[in-house]
């Protein structure tokens, strides 16, 4: 197939989205290979969306078997799949979403070992790791940086969700929204992303009260405290008995990050309590929102159109709101 020509089927299938992002963006998506690690609810939604959009190839890695609980948000599985490898159960259903996309599955986590991961990453255009612990995200992100591959992490903890991305030096086209509406031109933009490791050292000192408040820091620190908890205990909190420890970790993080004290000195206890109870659980509507936002951002990055997330998004399912905090990331330059 001539890479610069779209078939009738592609034109028909992708008509409504090409009208949004243009044929060139579609072309870039079609040429992209995406690595997705772990197939839980967030990945299920993300994969559905990027496969429908028409990426070239998906490589999906998960070593685990389908559990009964996975049926709650995992619509690639059915009852009969319980006990099978997740990736084996899902493969045909993913392929079925869009016959134009190639799907490759890897039923073990060996590729995540340092050496394997580097060579795997070199063969793909973008890496997306879901529902994973933060220590390992730091490690995998660093490997991606060495290979200059854009990196996404995303996941949900009960009603909370997050997306982190490290897109290195990312160039993209975006309408200049600062100019008058009738004279908007597309301009080339560039953004420099920090690693996850550096992002986690972010201090909030520069933000005003209003700027701090807008970012909904409580939900950000709720997620960061879960990462801390998981790092020290090697597990997620799973009940109110963990709430107190989680609260202490959250408040220490808030204090260390020098968050504007008029806005937040302590993460509200009812939020901590609900997070301590629900963190190990996933919920379809939350996965739909986070997986939708995550997939959309991956597509924007591939297309090099529109500004991607910069660089840490949290979603709060209690309100339906999402905010994006620039963790150790300077503002975008032209």
């Amino acid at each position, binding site marked *: 197939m001539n890479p610069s020509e779209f078939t009738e089927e592609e034109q028909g299938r992708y008509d409504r989205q090409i009208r949004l992002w243009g044929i060139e963006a579609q*072309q870039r998506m079609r040429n992209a290979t995406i690595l997705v690690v772990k197939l839980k609810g967030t990945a299920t939604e993300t994969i559905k969306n990027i496969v429908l*959009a028409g990426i070239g190839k998906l490589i999906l890695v998960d070593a685990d078997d389908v559990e009964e609980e996975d049926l709650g*948000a995992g619509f690639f599985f059915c009852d009969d799949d319980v006990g099978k490898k997740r990736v084996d159960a899902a493969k045909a259903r993913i392929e079925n979403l869009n016959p134009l996309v190639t799907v490759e599955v890897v039923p073990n986590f060996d590729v995540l070992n340092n050496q394997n991961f580097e060579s795997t990453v070199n063969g793909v255009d973008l890496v997306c790791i879901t529902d994973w612990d933060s220590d390992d995200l730091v490690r995998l992100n660093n490997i991606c940086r060495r290979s200059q591959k854009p990196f996404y992490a995303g996941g949900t903890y009960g009603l909370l969700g997050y997306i982190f991305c490290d897109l290195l030096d990312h160039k993209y086209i975006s309408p200049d929204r600062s100019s008058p509406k009738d004279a908007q031109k597309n301009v080339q933009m560039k953004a420099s992303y920090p690693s996850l490791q550096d992002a986690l050292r972010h201090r909030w000192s520069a933000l005003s009260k209003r700027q701090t408040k807008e970012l909904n820091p409580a939900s950000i620190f709720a997620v960061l405290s879960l990462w801390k908890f998981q790092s020290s205990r090697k597990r997620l909190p799973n009940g109110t008995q963990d709430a107190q420890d989680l609260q202490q970790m959250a408040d220490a993080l808030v204090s260390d990050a020098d968050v504007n004290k008029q806005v937040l000195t302590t993460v509200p206890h009812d939020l901590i309590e609900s997070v301590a109870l629900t963190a190990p659980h996933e919920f379809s*509507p939350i996965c*739909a929102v986070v997986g*939708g936002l995550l*997939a*959309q951002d991956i597509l924007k990055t591939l297309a090099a159109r529109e500004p991607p*997330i910069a660089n840490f998004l949290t979603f709060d399912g209690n309100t339906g709101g999402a905010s994006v905090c620039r963790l150790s990331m300077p503002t975008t330059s032209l």
Partner: protein
Amino acid sequence: MSTAPGRTKHAEAILGPKLHSRLSQTKVLVVGAGGIGCELLKTIVLTGFTQITLLDLDTIDLSNLNRQFLFRTKDVKKPKSITAARAASSFNPNAKITPIFGNIKDEEYDVNWFKGFGVVLNALDNLDARRHVNKMCMAAGVPLVESGTAGYLGQVQPLVKDATECFDCIPKPTPKSFPVCTIRSTPSQPIHCIVWSKSYLMGQLFGTDEEAGAGTSELDEAEKNGENAEEIAKLRQEARSFARVRAAIRSYNVNSPEDPAKIAFEKVFKADIENLLSMSDMWKHRAPPVPLDYDTIINGSFVGVDSSQALNGTTGASGQTNGSKVVMKDQKKLTLKENLELFVSSVHSLSARLSSNEVQTIEFDKDDEDTLDFVTAASNLRSAAYGIEGKSKWEVKEMAGNIIPAIATTNAIIAGLIVLQALNLLRASLSSPSPSASASSSSQDAIHDPGTQPKVDYSSLRNVHIQIKPSVPLSSVKLSSPNPNCGICRDTYTLVNCDRTRTTLRDIVHGVLGWSKQKANGNSQLNGQGNDVADNDEEGDREISVYEDKRILADPDWDDNLDRTLESLNVGRGKFISIVHEDGAWETVQVGIGELPPTHPPNADPYILPSPLPKLVKKPKSKQSVPPSTPPPRTSLKRSLPVDNDNDDVLVIDDGENDGKKAGARDTNGEPAAKKAKMSNDGAGNTKNSANATGLTSPSKKRKLEEDGLVMMDGPGEGGMDEDEDVIIIDED
């Protein structure tokens, strides 16, 4: 079918056992199985709702497959509702999904039917159906979660009567429209030529005789509005002289002595333009068009107006793909000669269909290649004559078909947010003191009277928007209170179940207002002179008018219809009879018309009045009405993301009315003489003017008149999308 018990473990942990157990007891109506609908169905099934009704009137198209993930290539042309229900059932064997392949505006989906649901979730793509569902939910007292998407943007809004704004509390923008003369004689933008081809020329050549005639009737309106009389006369003459072209089209075959394409071309691109040019005054201040010439275009020697864009027509890519090597065939701009050739071939194809009697008429359909070719070619030829930039077939399809870009991600996000708001609604009703807060079990009258409503705390509900702002991609704001002047949710709703063949308008109106109890029932032979309504005015509030939708059925000076049956007045099941108080002191009473239960005794009255009768609600002091159909320019985007979108439907350009294909509308063509009689008595103009002059005591009345086209511009060819459109049109199919 049994399913793994662990399936619901996560959801139960997150929702708590009380709310979780409520899911399977709540009947959910999902309206729409398109982009939002497929995502929504998946998410509600996985969340744990098990009693689901899914309604959609559409069938699957190839262009749906990039986002409507329950559908496959092999499903194209099958009903969306049935296909989606089957596919989503596999996500949770506990779920029972009842698909309906139908129109939400059909009469069986009346107020009683809506009352059977605990919550309604809208996944619609057009304003008309949204407004309809909003009104039905307000009437039935069922909470509604409204939604819409367009491209990267979208929004979700929970609506509860008396507690929050309703969909119509904030006016929605009406589609942009163009003056008749801009379309017919002085186009200056590509869209003007596209509207002309699609709405005018298509009808003149391939439509019914009446459609061809309509080309002159819109001119009557224009003349009334004081547009140039001489110009109108020319246009009228032009519209009348299509007979020869129509005849050639309908007798076309390959051996035809007369080529209908050439005859049509000579008329519309040469003779008609020469005719307009003869009015030299018109072209004093604007560049005159240049008549096109068939033979010189074919041989390449034609010299026209603006040679840069329109005529040389470089075959570069268009718009955003400028400079790119990646081009789809339809994105190439055609040269003048290519446009002429396309015009000829498309006229031949369409003529062959008509002359073979395969069909009697052909309308524009963006998915019908011949009609799209015709509109592309004809609009580009007209553009060439007027020195306007040409458009590619790809662009014309979007502009003529009102296509709104749509992607899976936005729909998935919005669907997740809809379910979260639906859960907030359920949680609120759980915590209310009344155990019967579930709308499905509330009695029909309690919901209409704020006084008797259980106090439910809806403060957790949020209006959520996807927005461009990088730091807050999902904005979540508290809901606003109802607009005190809303012409929909401030009305008082009630319901009369009746046999429409035996129930008169008087039975309904007097019965609901409680007048029938007060007076002897011996005055049923009124002959138009009677002032029954006004004469019995004992309390000073009897000056009423009665409407069905926008039709006036009675007013204080005209009660001929009171003793006619609902059936003879064509007031069907599912319709509302609106009782409007002329002095403006009371809110309008909307009487939903339902069916008698099968157990109703045959010798009893053929109707069941609500018990207790609805309490009239005093209007707020302000006389400033905000009728839903008259949007002022919108300033705040935040609150009022305009939710319109008609993806597949030609919402504007056809004629502003629904074509019945989408959830849009099924117009009652058999409209009884009621309105016409009234208008001929009184004069439509008078009615309109007096309504306006008196400052509109009744929002409903003004709205009705406006919808009727008496105030607003209406008619063929007066709408379209403009490039510099500044409203965000939100929607989703």
